C-alpha cells in the first residue's frame, strides 16, 4: 500500500485494494462505475473543492471514480483530486475513447509511466467502427504492455469481460528515457514510490512539497517523448478504412458555423426560456410553491411548532415567522428553487452530453472577450438566469481569479434570476413593446459597460479559450437524470444552510428595527432621485432577501408605466439576494463581496435615476 496519506480526506476502508477509474472527460466513465459497484455506493465531497468522489465496493476491492482529466498533474481542481486518487490506486482501470486514441492514450501512457498496474477499457468501439476506424487490438496490447478490453459501455458490451479481468491489470511499457529512469530512481529513494517520483520529475510542486522536495523541470522533455511514443503507437495500430463523416459530424459543423449556429442557438435559448421561464417558473412552481408549500406545508408546520413555541417570541419568529427558517426558507428552497435549479441542470446536462456546450462556448467567445472573459464563462452566465447563487458556485471552472471576479460581479449586477424574471415579465408585458425594449437595452448596456470597465481596470490577463470539442452525440436519458439529480442535490446541500442563515439574519434585522431604519433613511432618495412613491422602498428592502420578493412587492403598488419601468430596472440591477451574497463571501472573501454589493447599489440607483430623467 502506498501514499495512503493523500486519501485520508475521504472516508474509505484502507485495508482493501483500491481500483481507480481514470479517463478523459466524456468517455463514459460513470457507466463503468455504476456497472462495477451497482450498490453500496457512497458519494463524498472532496474537501476544498466542489467535486464529489463516488466510491463503492466490487468483489474484494474498493472502487473509486475520478473527475475526467487529460493528464495527471495539478493544473486545476479536477486534476488535483484525480491526481491524489490515482496516486493512492493499487489498480487503475483506464477508460479510453476509441475514436480519440491520440488524445486518450497520452493519459494511458502517463499512468503506465507512473508504474501503476493498468488495464485499458477501449470504449466506444461501435462509434470507431462506424467511422471506418480499424484498431489492431493485439498490437495495442503488445505496445502498451497491458490488457486491453474492447467495450461499448452504453450497450453494456464488454463490461462483464472487463470486470472478470481486472485482476489481470499489470505494469506496462514505459516511455521514459534511460536518463529519466535514473533520475526517477534517485527520487524514489526518498519517496519510496515511482508514481510520486514521476510527478516530481514532471514539475509537480504539490507532490514535491509533500515530501519536502523541490519539483524538477523535466516536464516538457518527458511529455514530448510520451507524445511521440503515443503517436507512433497510434500510427502502428490504426487503419482508416474509409473516411465517412457521420451525421453527428455534419450537425457539429452546422452548430459551429455562425450563419447556421447563431440562429440554432437562438432557437435553443427560446426553448430554454419556454421550458424554464414559462413551464417550470410559472406552471410547476405554481403547484410546488403555492399549492403544496404555502397551501399545505406552512400551515402544518406553523400549527405544529406553535404548540411548543409562542409565535410572538423571537424564537417563534425565527422559526415560523415571515422569514422563518422552517417556513419561508423551506418553501423557498423546495417549492421555488429546487424545481428551477433541477430544470436548469436538466437542460444543461442535455447541452453537455450532446457535445453542444463547448460549441456554444466557441461561438460566443469573441463577445465575452470584450468583457475579459472567454467562451467558457457562458456556463455560469446561462445558469445565472436560473439562479444566481447556483451560477456563482460554477464560476470556479473559470481559468483565472480575474475572470471569476468579473463573472461574479456581472452575475450579481445584471443577470436577473428566473424567480425574478417571471415577476418582471408579468409586470412589463402590459406596458407594451417600447418599455420592454428600453428595459432590455438598459440592462444589456449596463452588463456590457460593467464588463468592459472591469476588463480595463482589473490587473492581469484573462485566459484564452482552448477547449476540446467532443463529437455530437445523442444524450442518454439515464445519464442526464443522474447528472441532474447529483447536481441538484449538491446545490441544495450547499445553498440550503446559507438560505437559512440569511433568513435568520433578516428576522433579527427586522425585529431589531434596523430594516425600518434603513427604509426611512433611503426614502427621500427614492422619491427625489428615482421619482418613485415612498412605498417602493419596502419592495427594494425585500429584494435584499429574495429578488423575486422585491419584484413581487411592486405588484401591489399603483405605479405609472414610467415608474414601473424605473423600479424594475432598479430591482434587476439591485443587490444580489442574501443567499447569493453569502456564496460570494464564501467564494471571493468578504471584501470582494462587499464591493459587489456596494457596486450594485450604486449602479442600480445611478442607472435608475438616469432612466427616470430621460423618459
Amino acid at each position, binding site marked *: 500500500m502506498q501514499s495512503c496519506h493523500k486519501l485520508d480526506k475521504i472516508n474509505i476502508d484502507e485495508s482493501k485494494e483500491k481500483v481507480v477509474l481514470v479517463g478523459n472527460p466524456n468517455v463514459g466513465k460513470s457507466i463503468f462505475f455504476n456497472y462495477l459497484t451497482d450498490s453500496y455506493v457512497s458519494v463524498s465531497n472532496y474537501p476544498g473543492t466542489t467535486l464529489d468522489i463516488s466510491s463503492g465496493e466490487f468483489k474484494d476491492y474498493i472502487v473509486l471514480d475520478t473527475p475526467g482529466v487529460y493528464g495527471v498533474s495539478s493544473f486545476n481542481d479536477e486534476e488535483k483530486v484525480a491526481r491524489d486518487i490515482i496516486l493512492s490506486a493499487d489498480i487503475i482501470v483506464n477508460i479510453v475513447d476509441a475514436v480519440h486514441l491520440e488524445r486518450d492514450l*497520452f493519459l494511458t501512457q502517463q499512468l503506465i509511466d507512473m508504474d501503476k498496474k493498468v488495464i485499458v477499457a477501449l470504449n466506444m468501439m461501435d462509434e470507431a467502427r462506424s467511422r471506418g476506424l480499424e484498431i489492431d487490438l493485439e498490437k495495442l496490447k503488445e505496445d502498451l504492455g497491458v490488457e486491453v478490453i474492447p467495450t461499448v459501455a452504453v450497450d453494456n458490451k464488454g463490461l462483464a469481460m472487463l470486470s472478470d479481468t481486472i485482476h489481470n491489470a499489470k505494469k506496462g511499457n514505459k516511455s521514459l528515457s534511460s536518463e529519466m529512469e535514473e533520475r526517477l530512481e534517485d527520487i524514489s529513494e526518498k519517496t519510496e514510490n515511482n508514481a510520486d517520483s514521476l510527478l516530481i520529475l514532471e514539475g509537480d510542486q504539490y507532490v514535491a512539497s509533500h515530501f519536502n522536495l523541490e519539483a524538477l523541470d523535466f516536464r516538457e522533455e518527458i511529455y514530448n517523448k510520451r507524445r511521440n511514443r503515443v503517436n507512433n503507437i497510434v500510427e502502428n495500430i490504426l487503419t482508416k478504412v474509409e473516411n465517412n463523416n457521420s451525421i453527428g459530424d455534419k450537425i457539429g459543423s452546422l452548430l459551429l458555423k455562425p450563419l447556421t449556429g447563431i440562429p440554432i442557438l437562438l432557437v435553443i435559448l427560446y426553448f430554454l426560456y419556454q421550458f424554464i421561464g414559462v413551464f417550470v417558473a410559472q406552471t410547476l412552481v405554481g403547484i410546488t410553491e403555492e399549492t403544496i408549500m404555502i397551501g399545505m406545508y406552512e400551515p402544518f408546520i406553523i400549527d405544529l411548532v406553535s404548540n411548543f413555541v409562542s409565535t410572538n417570541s423571537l424564537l417563534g419568529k425565527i422559526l415560523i415567522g415571515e422569514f422563518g427558517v422552517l417556513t419561508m426558507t423551506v418553501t423557498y428552497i423546495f417549492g421555488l428553487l429546487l424545481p428551477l435549479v433541477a430544470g436548469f441542470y436538466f437542460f444543461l446536462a442535455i447541452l453537455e452530453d450532446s457535445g453542444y456546450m463547448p460549441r456554444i462556448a466557441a461561438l460566443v467567445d469573441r463577445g465575452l472577450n470584450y468583457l475579459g472573459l472567454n467562451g467558457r464563462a457562458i456556463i455560469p452566465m446561462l445558469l445565472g438566469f436560473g439562479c444566481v447563487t447556483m451560477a456563482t458556485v460554477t464560476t470556479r471552472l473559470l481559468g483565472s481569479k480575474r475572470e471569476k471576479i468579473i463573472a461574479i460581479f456581472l452575475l450579481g449586477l445584471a443577470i436577473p434570476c428566473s424567480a425574478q424574471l417571471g415577476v418582471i415579465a408579468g409586470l412589463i408585458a402590459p406596458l407594451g413593446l417600447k418599455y420592454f425594449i428600453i428595459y432590455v437595452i438598459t440592462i444589456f448596456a449596463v452588463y456590457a459597460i460593467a464588463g468592459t470597465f472591469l476588463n480595463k481596470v482589473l490587473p492581469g490577463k484573462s485566459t484564452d479559450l482552448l477547449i476540446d470539442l467532443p463529437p455530437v452525440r445523442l444524450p442518454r436519458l439515464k445519464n442526464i437524470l443522474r447528472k441532474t439529480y447529483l447536481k441538484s442535490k449538491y446545490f441544495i446541500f450547499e445553498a440550503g444552510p446559507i438560505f437559512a442563515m440569511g433568513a435568520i439574519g433578516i428576522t433579527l434585522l427586522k425585529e431589531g428595527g434596523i430594516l425600518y431604519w434603513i427604509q426611512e433613511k433611503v426614502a427621500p432618495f427614492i422619491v427625489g432621485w428615482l421619482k418613485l412613491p415612498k412605498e417602493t422602498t419596502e419592495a427594494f428592502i425585500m429584494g435584499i432577501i429574495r429578488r423575486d420578493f422585491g419584484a413581487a412587492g411592486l405588484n401591489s403598488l399603483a405605479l405609472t408605466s414610467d415608474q414601473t419601468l424605473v423600479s424594475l430596472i432598479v430591482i434587476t440591477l439591485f443587490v444580489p439576494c442574501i443567499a447569493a451574497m453569502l456564496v460570494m463571501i464564501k467564494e471571493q472573501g468578504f471584501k470582494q463581496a462587499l464591493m459587489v454589493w456596494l457596486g450594485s447599489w450604486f449602479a442600480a440607483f445611478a442607472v435608475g435615476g438616469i432612466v427616470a430623467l430621460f423618459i
Partner: protein
Amino acid sequence: MTLAEIQKGKDFKVKNIPDDMIRIQTLRMGISEGSKLNCNEKIPGGPVIVKHNYQEIAIGRRLAEDIQIELFTEGSD
C-alpha cells in the same frame, strides 16, 4: 504566419507555441509542434477550430495570434 491568419479548409503544420502552459495542454490533447492539422472552421473575429483526425479543438483568437504555423501542401514536408 500565425494560426489567426489561416483560411478555413487549409492544412498546416504547427511551428511554434510560445506559451509553456498552452504548449503542455495542447500536447496532452494531441497537438505538438510539428503536428499537421486542418483548419475546420473560423468564427469571424472568434476562435479558430482545428482538426486532427477526429479531434476538434477550439483555440481563442488571441491565442491563435501567438501560434506560429506554416501552410502545408501534399508533397512538401
